[in-house]
C-alpha cells in the first residue's frame, strides 16, 4: 500500500491523533513527479488529493505552489540525478522549483518523496534559502502525534 493510504487509514480510524497547532510557519506542499503526474499518466491515478488531506490534518494553513498537480515543476532530483555526478546540471534544474517556493514565502516545504527531499535540501544553499526546512510528509505526521 502507499504511504498515503496507510496514513489516511490511521487518521480516519482514530489509530493516531494529530495536533494541528504545533506548526505555524508558512508551509507549502510539493507534488513529486512519480506520485503525481507520472502515476496519473501511467496508472490512471495521481496522488494529489491524498497528501493534501493529510497535510490539512497536521496544519490549519498551508499554501500551494504554482503551477501544481499535473503542471508542477520537477525539483530536479528525480531519475537518479542525485547519483549521476552531473551536479551543476542538477542544481540548475532546481531553479524553477526554488523560485516557486520563494514565491509563496514558505519557510517549510513538505514532500512525500526521498529524492525530492534529498534534492531540495541539497540545493537550497545555492539559492540563498538555507533556512528553508524540508520535511517528509510522514515526518510532519510523526511530529504532530498526540501520544
Amino acid at each position: 500500500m502507499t504511504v498515503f493510504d496507510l496514513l489516511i487509514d490511521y487518521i480516519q480510524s482514530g489509530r493516531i491523533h494529530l495536533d494541528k497547532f504545533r506548526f505555524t510557519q508558512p508551509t507549502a506542499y510539493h507534488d513529486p513527479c512519480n506520485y503525481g503526474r507520472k502515476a496519473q499518466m501511467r496508472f490512471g491515478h495521481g496522488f494529489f488529493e491524498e497528501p493534501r488531506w493529510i497535510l490539512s490534518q497536521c496544519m490549519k494553513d498551508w499554501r500551494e505552489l504554482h503551477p501544481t498537480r499535473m503542471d508542477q515543476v520537477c525539483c530536479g532530483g528525480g531519475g537518479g540525478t542525485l547519483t549521476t555526478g552531473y551536479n551543476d546540471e542538477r542544481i540548475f534544474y532546481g531553479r524553477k522549483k526554488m523560485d516557486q517556493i520563494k514565491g509563496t514565502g514558505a519557510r517549510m516545504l513538505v514532500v512525500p518523496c526521498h529524492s525530492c527531499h534529498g534534492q531540495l535540501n541539497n540545493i537550497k544553499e545555492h539559492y540563498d534559502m538555507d533556512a528553508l526546512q524540508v520535511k517528509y510528509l510522514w515526518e510532519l505526521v510523526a511530529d504532530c502525534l498526540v501520544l
Partner: protein
Amino acid sequence: MDSEDRMEMTQLEFGRCRSWPHSQDYCITCGLCSSACPVSGVDGFDPRKMIRMISFGLDDDLVVSRWPWICTMCGKCEHVCPMEIHIADAVRNVRSLRPRADVPGVLHKGLEAALDTGNNLRLPREDFIFILEDVAEELAEEEGYGDFKVPIDKKGARLLTTIHNKLVNTHTDDLKHWWKIFHAAQEDWTVASENWEGTSWGYFTGDNEAMKVMAGRIIEQMERLEIDTLLWPE
C-alpha cells in the same frame, strides 16, 4: 518518376529504434515539450531534439551523450505533448542502451551491489540489525516511546516495510518518523533482515530485469514472513 530519382529506401530503416513503442514517429515538432522542460538548453538538450533523433535512428549519438541522464524523466514534456508521445519512457529506453560500465556516477554500481547482496550499500545483515537496534534504543529514550523495540523478521506481522538505504547510512534519524507513527498506531509491523532495500535503481538505469529481481525479493520476504501487506515508501 524515373527509377534513378527514387528515394533510397534504406535510409528509412531507422535501426534499432524502429520498433520502439513510444509513438516517437508522430512528433509534429511543435516544441511544447522543449518549452515545458526545466532543463532545456543545458548541454544543448531539449526533448524535441531527442525524440527526433530517436525517430531518425540517431540513437548511437544519444546513447553516448549526457542528455538522457540530465533529464529526470519527470513527464512534464509528455503531459503537454499533443501527440501523446511517451517521451519519458523513450528517455529511459535510451538509458538502457548505455553499456553498463559507462552508466554515470554510482547508479549501476549501487544496483550491482543490490543484486549481489540485497542492498545498495553491501551492508551485511549483522551491521543492518545493529544500526536498527541502535536507533531504536535512541528512540526509546524519547518521551512516549519508552518501550519501543524494532521488530525484525517478525513472522505473521500485518505489515512489512522496506527501508531506503540512506536511512541506514547517512540519515539514520529519519528512520524514526515511521517508527513513531507505527508505535502510536499500535501497528503490528516488521522489517526484513535481508533484502530490505526499498530503492530499485534499475528504474533509473533502464534495467527492467534488475527491477524484477528486486521486486521479486521483496515478495519473497513477504512469503517467508507470511505477511499480506507491504508498505514501500520509496
